[in-house]
């Protein structure tokens, strides 16, 4: 048990960088120094003269040897305002962001490739860069894609319920604005892969740090003009992903490098390159009005939503599509009458956008949780009173939210009630008053998140594909395989536990196979692991158990109804001495006597193996086509902070979280997800932000200036659980993993605003860096003391 952990703790990892193939070469990308420029010429001849350089690939070669990168979502096909650029993984005529790869150098050693990169002569003609989304929307703005005529890649309007009626009934209308800085996950292991092409068979074998090898195969084979059967991807150990590794655009160049050089080629991305070309996220602005009654009822929301996609949001990652869950998640845990959102996905000269934990849903939820805080303040009520007043009640499930999402189950008042207790909110509020008298600024903040999980969306790569295979081997062990790629979320452990419990097998008898593109399935993102792949696994294991019992009934001469399995031993519940091990049964089924010894009826049905494949589709989405997601776990956060008004520093005095992930599959794993997510959200709230200058230069390209939380910055976290089983999954489990990063950011910002309430500060942007906090305070002082 815990084989993977034993391997990793003792230095026996299988991360991409650990894999060495015979005769392997190395790939390095050379990036553009400019954010926006026309490429006038590229001359790689000096680079090619460096001893040890095998090839230099530029835009010229990719246009000839590959197809453009395929779009990961396409709603233009159904008539929406949804543009898809013609994009290649290396810049062709012009560069559109600083760091955009212009050439790939394949050499005997990465250092040789780096030396050669400096010798590539590129003549650029600089163009005016756009690094501001509002500027990009002006008609006179320079264009990222000239062929579009403007910079609006996506423009959608969402109309849920009756928003006009909501505003008619309102006692008050309150304005709320909220901007989130550009951030991303940036796991400690950057992206990377190895490609090994065999000219004779035409087979491209790859090992990749990826969340979804099957989708990767689809993407890479399409770009490289190979049949999918000629691309195979094995997921290496993944050193963190968080959504940042659901893109393969650079992998296509590594594949091409192997095809061109006929050598295995390894690419391990440097941290700087990851920051510069990586999957960025957030960078959204909401400008809205909320209709409320004086009793704290929230009736409706009207908003304009801007998302800065960077260069584009479809080909190098699935980003534009995140606008949909963002707008569909605004109603969060509450009854509302209507919501209207006008949403724009705008291109600028910034790095490509892709998924990061929360994907899009996070943005709508955080907007609503900021609304609650502002409304509470305006109405002089406590924020929990607003939440309790507007909550969907436990007896209303399944509940069809305004967006069409059908919430499976929950007890929101219980979750919030428990976190108020664990977070000792009333006692902190008393301390807050006393502290203020001593010139100390303590704030209590909270947030509530309903996290949509387990997506099946049409016209994109996230359609809800999954498959599991469970088999008993000839020596009575259990092999398990599905698309629940292990990325550090603990899926090896949960898969083994789920199957062992169903089959009655010993946990040590379960072997979870490494995920590869052989298994159809969309992989792991959007908290789908516990839903789709686990659903398929449960179906396969359940059917396998039925087959085991059928076979055992024959060999043990016992009625199926009286057979059970425990600890890998099959026994009669009537006569406990009648028993055989799974190993003995497997030997009977496979070899002694083998299929010839099975009952005729099973032979006639060709049911002669202990090997079952199954797929799964969400019963929620099947019954309710508007419910793109399957389960909706909930979480509540309380953050208590102290703000040092002299320095702007924020310290965390108390942190509590309560979660309802339905039936818990593994408590340690669920809590690991919660702790990790909370601390990432705290980083987003306080320090993390990718800062672009007006000329489109990214100022922070390392952990020194893109500050993620250390152990010293992170709080102890008190945690509690509520379990309301989901009716839409086999065991009542819910997908989880994103609510904590969503709630913690909102709770932290709300806590800081509460701490600063004597200064009458309304926070409209994040992160709350020390500089920003100081700026807010000094602006307020100027305002309050004329």
């Amino acid at each position, binding site marked *: 048990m815990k084989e993977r952990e034993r391997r990793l703790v003792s230095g026996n990892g299988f991360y991409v960088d650990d894999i060495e193939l015979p005769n392997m070469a190395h790939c390095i990308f050379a990036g553009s120094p400019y954010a926006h420029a026309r490429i006038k010429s590229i001359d790689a001849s000096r680079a090619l003269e460096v001893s040890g350089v095998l090839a230099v690939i530029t835009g010229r070669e990719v246009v000839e040897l590959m197809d453009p990168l395929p779009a990961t979502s396409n709603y233009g096909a159904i008539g929406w305002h949804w543009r898809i650029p013609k994009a290649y993984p290396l810049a062709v005529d012009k560069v559109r962001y600083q760091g955009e790869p212009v050439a790939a150098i394949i050499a005997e050693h990465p250092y040789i490739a780096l030396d050669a990169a400096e010798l590539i002569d590129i003549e650029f003609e600089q163009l005016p860069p756009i690094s501001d989304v509002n500027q990009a929307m002006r008609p006179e703005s320079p264009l990222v894609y000239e062929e579009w005529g403007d910079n609006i890649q996506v423009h959608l309007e969402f109309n849920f319920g009756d928003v006009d009626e909501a505003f008619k009934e309102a006692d008050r209308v309150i304005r709320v604005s909220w901007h989130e800085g550009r951030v991303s996950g940036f796991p400690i*292991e950057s992206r990377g892969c190895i490609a090994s092409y065999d000219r004779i068979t035409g087979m491209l074998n790859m090992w990749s740090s990826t969340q979804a090898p099957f989708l990767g195969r689809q993407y890479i084979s399409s770009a490289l003009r190979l049949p999918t059967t000629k691309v195979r991807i094995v997921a290496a150990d993944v050193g*963190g992903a968080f959504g940042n590794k659901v893109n393969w655009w650079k992998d296509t160049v590594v594949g091409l490098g192997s095809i061109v050089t006929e050598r295995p080629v390894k690419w391990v991305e440097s941290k700087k390159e990851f920051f510069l070309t990586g999957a960025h996220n957030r960078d959204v602005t909401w400008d809205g009005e909320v209709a409320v009654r004086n009793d704290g009822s929230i009736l409706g929301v009207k908003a304009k939503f801007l998302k800065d996609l960077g260069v584009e949001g479809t080909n190098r990652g699935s980003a534009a599509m995140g606008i949909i869950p963002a707008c569909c998640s605004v109603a969060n845990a509450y009854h509302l009458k209507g919501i209207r959102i006008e949403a724009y996905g705008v291109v600028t000269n910034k790095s490509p956008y892709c998924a990061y934990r929360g994907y899009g849903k996070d943005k709508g939820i955080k907007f609503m949780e900021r609304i609650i805080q502002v409304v509470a303040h305006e109405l002089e009520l406590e924020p929990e009173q607003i939440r309790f007043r507007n909550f969907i009640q436990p007896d209303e499930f399944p509940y069809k939210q305004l967006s069409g999402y059908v919430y499976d189950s929950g007890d929101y008042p219980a979750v919030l009630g428990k976190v108020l207790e664990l977070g000792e909110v009333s006692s902190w509020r008393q301390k807050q008053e006393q502290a203020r008298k001593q010139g100390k600024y303590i704030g209590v903040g909270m947030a509530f998140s309903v996290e949509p999980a387990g997506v099946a969306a049409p016209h994109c790569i996230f359609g809800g594909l999954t498959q599991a295979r469970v088999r008993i081997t000839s020596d009575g062990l259990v092999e398990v395989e599905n698309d629940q790629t292990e990325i*550090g979320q603990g899926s090896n452990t949960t898969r083994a536990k789920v199957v062992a419990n169903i089959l009655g097998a010993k946990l040590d008898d379960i072997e979870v196979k490494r995920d590869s593109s052989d298994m159809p399935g969309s992989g792991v993102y959007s908290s789908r692991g516990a839903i789709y792949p686990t659903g398929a696994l449960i179906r396969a294991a359940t059917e396998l158990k039925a087959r085991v019992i059928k076979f055992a009934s024959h060999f043990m001469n016992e009625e199926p109804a009286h057979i059970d399995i425990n600890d890998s031993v099959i026994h009669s519940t009537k006569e406990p001495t009648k028993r055989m091990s799974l190993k003995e049964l497997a030997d009977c089924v496979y070899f002694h006597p083998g299929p010839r010894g099975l009952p005729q009826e099973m032979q006639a049905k060709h049911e002669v193996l202990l090997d079952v494949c199954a797929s799964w589709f969400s019963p929620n989405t099947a019954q309710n086509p508007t419910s793109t997601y399957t389960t909706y776990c909930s979480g509540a956060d309380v953050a208590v902070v102290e703000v040092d008004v002299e320095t702007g520093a924020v310290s965390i005095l108390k942190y509590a979280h309560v979660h309802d992930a339905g039936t818990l599959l593994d408590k*340690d794993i669920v809590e690991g997800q919660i702790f990790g997510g909370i601390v*990432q959200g705290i980083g987003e709230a306080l320090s993390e932000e990718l800062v672009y200058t007006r000329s489109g230069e990214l100022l922070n390209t390392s952990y020194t200036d893109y500050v993620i939380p250390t152990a010293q910055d992170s709080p102890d976290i008190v945690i509690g659980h509520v379990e309301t089983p989901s009716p839409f999954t086999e065991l009542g489990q819910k997908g989880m993993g994103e609510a904590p990063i969503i709630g913690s950011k909102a709770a932290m910002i709300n806590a800081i605003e509460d701490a600063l309430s004597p200064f009458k500060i309304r926070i409209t942007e994040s992160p709350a860096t020390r500089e920003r906090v100081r700026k807010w305070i000094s602006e307020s002082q100027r305002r309050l003391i004329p």
Partner: protein
Amino acid sequence: MKVPIETKVNNKTYKLEVEARFTLLDILREELKIKSVHRGCEHGECGACTVLLSGKPVCSCLVLAPQVDGAEITTVEGLLKDKELHPLMMAFIENHAIQCGYCTPGVIMMAYYLLNNRPEFTDEELRKGIAGNLCRCTGYVHIIRAIKAAKEYKDSGNWW
């Protein structure tokens, strides 16, 4: 340009000729095939490549080849006793302190150094002690728990 170096890694002596621009990280991974030492940021920011250099924790990406000459290096492989996991490693497994595992060997080496060099510490001191090792998965909660559990192993004599 290549430089000759002699170094003792996990109690075994090596005489090597390596590129002068190689870092200790390159030497360990490429020349000696010690893959526990992870390439994280290559700027001394993340701590994923932490090893002990003559008893002191260092980011191996910041140590150049000539500086390794005559030094003694310990990596997590050096903590194994006949392939048996060190009690500190067991504490990490038992407390669910390993998620993606990429930062783990570096954190283990830093924790090993702290536990061997500080008889007592508060939670705050422990957090400060491992603040040079970034982890993006765990929020550090289970890591802190694991190191505290390892301290109990050490105090009860289950240690080497």
